[in-house]
């Protein structure tokens, strides 16, 4: 038996002020929201988020003032909120630094870090303002120390091997901690993700420390019976915890759907800082995971529950 088990509170305590963080999931799916709420309760400051794409986790942490730097390509709530209102507000007020890469660039940056390579060559987004040297935010802020933050945002070059022409080199995404939210983890850390695994394998491998919050901790031996179905290796995971519905209001394949009504409400009410603060008082502060679930209530959670044959809920109202 390994000693990887920790509590929700301990998971948040591992993430120190100023740490760089990345997350599992994709936009409004499989985000480690319970840990995000705990970070807000603990008053974490100065975080540097490096995300393949953003979502509600970004918006909560940014709204609560936990984040100094956001490095990614997209934030919003999909159908339930067309952009990240909290990020947008903080960008306008110059309270946060934003470093824009494209989606594929962010993905390739994590793949580079996950394979131990310092950078990767790609042909995406050539000719766009994403590559505009004047828009190198971290460079302008004097933060490119060549240690955790790369010396350059981009390097432009030509293919030296096959003469294929212009290439852009993007730096590996070096990140301190990956916070994951998955369906199952074994006692020794083996992860089994069901459904699309998004950028989870690369995120877990790129980070120095990987924390996995799962719907359930299962016997390691159970996962090893069919090892071809597993997603992340035992020894790539440092800490594990069990937290049912830990991704709410985001969704989890096979377990529960996205709580669209919750995200719509969050988006509508957190355009202003006062609105965010009121929302956080209602849903984050003074709660723990159990009282949060109690506040949501059984009927709501049952409507989100996935049909086990289909892997999504047939009970939620999605449209007009």
């Amino acid at each position: 038996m390994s000693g990887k088990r920790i509590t929700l509170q301990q998971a948040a305590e591992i993430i120190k002020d100023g740490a760089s963080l990345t997350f599992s999931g994709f936009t409004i799916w499989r985000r480690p929201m319970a840990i995000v709420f705990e970070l807000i309760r603990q008053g974490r400051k100065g975080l540097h988020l490096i995300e393949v794409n953003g979502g509600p986790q970004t918006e909560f942490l940014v709204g609560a003032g936990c984040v100094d730097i956001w490095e990614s390509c997209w934030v919003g709530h999909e159908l339930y909120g067309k952009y990240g209102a909290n990020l947008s507000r903080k960008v306008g007020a110059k309270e946060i630094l934003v470093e824009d890469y494209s989606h594929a660039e962010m993905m390739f940056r994590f793949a580079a870090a996950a394979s131990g390579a310092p950078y990767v060559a790609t042909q995406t987004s050539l000719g766009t303002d994403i590559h505009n040297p004047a828009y190198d935010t971290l460079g302008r802020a004097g933060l490119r120390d060549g240690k955790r933050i790369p010396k350059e945002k981009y390097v432009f070059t030509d293919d030296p091997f096959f003469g294929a022409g212009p290439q852009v080199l993007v730096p590996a995404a070096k990140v301190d901690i990956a916070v994951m939210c998955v369906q199952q983890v074994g006692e020794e850390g083996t992860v089994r993700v069901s459904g699309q695994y998004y950028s989870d394998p690369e995120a877990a491998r790129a980070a120095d420390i990987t924390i996995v919050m799962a719907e359930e901790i299962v016997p390691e031996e159970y996962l090893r019976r069919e090892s071809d179905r597993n997603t992340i290796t035992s020894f790539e995971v440092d800490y594990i915890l069990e937290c049912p519905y830990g991704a709410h209001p985001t969704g989890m394949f096979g377990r529960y759907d996205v709580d669209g009504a919750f995200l719509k409400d969050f988006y509508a009410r957190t355009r202003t800082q006062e609105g965010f603060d009121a929302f956080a008082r209602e849903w984050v502060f003074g709660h723990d995971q159990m009282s949060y679930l109690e506040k949501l209530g059984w009927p709501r959670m049952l409507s989100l529950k996935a049909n086990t044959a289909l892997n999504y809920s047939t009970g939620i109202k999605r449209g007009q």
Partner: protein
Amino acid sequence: MTWEYATPEEYGLADLLCCAASREVQDNEIVFAGTGLPMVAIMLAQKTHAPNLKLIFEAGTLDGRPPEIPTSVGDARCEMGASRASGLHDAFSIAQRGYVDLGFLGGAEVDEYGNVNTTCIGDYLNPELRLTGSGGNPDINSFAKRTVFIMVHEKRRFTPSVSYITSPGWRVKKWPGGEFVHRKELYGAAYRGGPSAVISTAGVFRFDGESGKIYLDTCHPGKMPEEIRELCHFDLDISRVSGETLPPTREELHLIHEVLDPEQIFIPKVKKGV
């Protein structure tokens, strides 16, 4: 399938855009789908004239045939029926490898060379409004042979120069200097094509094969070319208008509302006779 066109009171603008987008798809193509109306359009093509199209969802579903419309590309509804459910590294590698024929994208602003902005309104360093950011827009647009943009038509959105080039059109900036060059020159061996159409709420626009400049191809029913030119901040070429955008057929409307999006997640139903 019957090609019996619906009358104007039987369909809404979203139906018209969805059908126009669907008709951009050719059979056997590999199509990259973004969230929203394009998903309905592609699945509509799959059920009509392009039964062999292959659908890729950015979050990692490859050759998908979802039984119910997903609300986003990360949705649990993407996986069932797919060839593979994997991740973003697969989806973007496949795109960079050159498999993708067509991608559907959106934008807040477009210029006359098809450069699109989804990042910010106003100066990037002092924005009036920060938007969602690029997402996969520039990636799909860099990798696919053709891309189609679906946009709300407002004069401020059709501009001679976008606030920020999020997604590359036909005349793009060469860094580090930033001088404008033709896309072909910049993409080298990775050049496969570029924006092929903009479907706005006013009409369908295409790009000249040589210059890469936008022109009006069809006007949506009830719109005149001059009227659409007035809705652009650049001098829109209306000399090549080929006619009116074809309305939805009754069969397409049936598929959209009874089969693909009965919950009206992306496409509202128009009440007949109201």
